[in-house]
């Protein structure tokens, strides 16, 4: 069914092309600097194209650390496992919360929402993880990140919006809640599940602080982000304790801009590939059509 292009379509297309240019710029800038000679980069003025092309920055990163490949695998594993467990946990809990007749609905809902705004701080959390014996154990990547209140609430609000006639008829057919959840609700929720999967995967992929805090004693558990962080070591300086002597040491630790940019590219490109894969779940009408057939 071919439709005529209206002025609206043309303006919109131009606008979106503009959005692409504007949002692509920082990334191209990083890519260009990462492929540019480190000394030359100091002169500034590099935009989207390297001036003195080189792969030396990447070589330096891969050359400086022989754990990178292993760390990369661990990052994939924690991302995959963390995403799957996270999805299962969030959808289950979200479903129970979407059932307004559920006896614990209000209590659990409040319990969950409050966790978004309260936190005990680093020391108590560290002590908890330590007392649970999770230090240097793979589960430290999965358990503490199992649920995020935000994700659960997003899924639940999506579920709230689903047409419920199907659910009712299944109930009449004698299906129990678990069957309704897995056979009816889950397929209907694919767009939101894809979204949350993306959020979870990105969170898992990007986290390095938990590796540092809880797993640096076990080399097998090291992750890509953590290894890159160690190379980057962008000595995060708060103005308080600077003086000429320690500042010199800190300055000596910082890497040329080109290396930082190359690290950014290595750290982000793998996770960027996830989105296009999930994109097909965002097609309008897919879910309802599937249910109806």
């Amino acid at each position, binding site marked *: 069914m071919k439709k005529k292009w209206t002025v609206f379509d043309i303006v919109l297309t131009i606008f979106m092309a503009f959005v692409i240019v504007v949002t692509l710029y920082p990334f191209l800038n990083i890519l260009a600097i990462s492929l540019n000679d480190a*000394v*030359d980069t*100091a*002169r*500034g*003025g590099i935009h989207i194209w390297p001036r003195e092309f080189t792969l030396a920055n990447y070589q330096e990163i891969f050359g*400086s*650390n022989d754990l990178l490949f292993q760390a990369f695998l661990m990052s*994939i*594993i924690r991302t*995959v*496992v963390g995403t*799957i467990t996270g999805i299962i946990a969030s959808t289950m809990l979200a479903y129970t919360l979407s059932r307004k007749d559920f006896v614990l609905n209000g209590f659990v809902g409040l319990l969950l929402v409050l966790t978004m705004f309260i936190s005990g701080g*680093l*020391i108590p959390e*560290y*002590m908890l993880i*330590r007392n649970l014996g999770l230090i*240097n*154990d*793979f589960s430290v990547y999965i358990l503490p990140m199992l649920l995020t209140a935000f994700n659960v609430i997003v899924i639940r609000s999506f579920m709230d919006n689903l047409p419920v006639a199907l659910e009712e008829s299944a109930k009449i057919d004698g299906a129990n809640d678990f069957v309704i959840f897995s056979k009816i609700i889950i397929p209907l929720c694919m767009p939101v599940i894809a979204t949350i999967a993306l959020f979870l995967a990105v969170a898992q992929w990007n986290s*390095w*602080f938990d590796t*540092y*805090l809880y797993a*640096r004693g*076990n080399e*097998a*558990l090291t992750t890509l982000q*953590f290894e890159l*962080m*160690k*190379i*980057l*070591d*962008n*000595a*995060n*300086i*708060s*103005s*308080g*304790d*600077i*003086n*000429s*002597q*320690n*500042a*010199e*040491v*800190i*300055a*000596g*630790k910082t890497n*040329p*801009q080109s290396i930082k940019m190359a690290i950014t590219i290595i750290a982000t490109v793998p996770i960027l590939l996830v989105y296009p894969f999930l994109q*097909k779940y965002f097609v309008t009408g897919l879910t309802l059509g599937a249910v109806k057939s």
Partner: protein
Amino acid sequence: MKRKLSNWALFLIFLLGFFVLAACSDSETGQGDDQSDKKEEPSAEDPITLSFFSADGTEKEFNDPVAQKITEETGIKLELDYPVGGNDEAIPLMIASGDYPDLIFAKGDIGKLIEAGGVIKLDDLIEEKGENLKAMYGDQINRLRNSIEDPSIYTVGTYGVENAYWETSGTFQIQLDVLRELGYPEIKTLEDFEAALTEYYEKYPEIDGQKTIPLSLLGSDWRWLITVGDPAGFAAGLAGDGQWAVDDETGEATYKFLLPELKEYFKWLNGLNAKGLLDPESFTQTYDTYISKLSSGRVLSVADQNWDFADADKALVADGKEWRTYAPLPVTLGEGYKSQSLKNYGFSGGWGIAISSTSEYQEEAFEFLDWMASEEAQILVNWGIEGENYDIVDGKRVMQEDDRERMNNDKDYSKETGVGYYIYPFPQWGNGAVDSTGQPITPNSEEQIIENFNTAEKEVLEEYEMENWIDCFPSTEELGISKHGQAFNYTIPAGSDLQIIQQKADDLTEQRITQAILGDPADFDKAWDDMIAELEAMNISKANEEMTKMVQDTMELWGTNE
């Protein structure tokens, strides 16, 4: 699509299986390690591993040639740990959990470890078997002591003992071309400095087609202290005490921005700004922009430390723009002030490496630290391995040509070979110290510094009839040795009034001074007076008192107060 999905599922199952296998095998090997960690005499074949937390550490395995040699001699391997990503909660977590590494270099946080009982006193160990440490510190050993109330020694190391000063770390610096163009004038005061900038700027309003910038600062982040705050103190002839002006005789400490001399400096900057001589982006630009401006050769002068713009210097030399690199100048407010760039602060003590109270290997750790202070060890960490990094020619150590070359130009040299890597923060001799044969212990020498000057620098020095830039600065001997060390190096108690007032005062002065510099010269005096009033309102005199007490206590502890 169906097919694709099932492939994906298969992949996941595979990965899951992989993970389960990996996890199982891990936990077994992990336990195996614990078993073998039985206490034994250290030896080269079966070395013991000491965990070492260094607040200034970087990612590094203890496996370079120098490290191997250290293990061979001491039977000790180090496992380095450090706060990744600038994390500053490492020490509190250590204390809360009680999981201490064997050796800890905590810098200013050492006070908390002492309070928590996390580190041991070293006095008896030094007395019993610290021959090398005793020899190294000699009469400076008092400077390692903790405090008047608890004068024990908890740490050793960090800074060198016996330093010589052959270069300034940085101060006011002007482009070599400005000096050449103006016929090599004598520049000693801010007035001279400004006159030189003005004259050159009028002659050359553009350099290589871009607008000339007479003076650029970097006051947009923590470097404000380096390029704005510190130079003000240097111009007023203050020694490097951070935010403090300390009278080395009486120990009287004053928050330095209260002083009228500093006002005079900033008033000068304010004037420069009004005359269009100060880069208007000095307080907003990013570090990268600053470096790229310097690299383009159009910035005539800086007030910065050498390490802070080393990248720009490299780029300039690489471009053949040697005449656009910078010469350090002993600029002060006027004749009555002395540039303190070559000041000898003595051994600063304070920070150092401590041994934890939970370590199984306290004795071994101490023996290791003591060995690091020995002449043999100092030569090893400074020069590397004989025959590989240096040779003995006519009874003198001479660095091999390629090592010398790499040492100057390759930033990975010390990481790869270990040469120079294990000096800081371990106990170390300074660059002025000599060994038992009278040779310098460190490979640095004044000749080498002079040799490394670029062609333009050499030409300018010749014109001034000097060998080295330091020749125009007041000499180290003239300035005398500091009796109190450096005030910024003191451990200020957490949560004390001094700490909080200083942080507030620093935040305030950075803002107010910046605004005053950029404001109308007619408003400067009022802006300054308002700032002083605000400082007084936050009870800065109390901070002065507490700091004065710390300085005086330190001098008493060190025995330098008579």
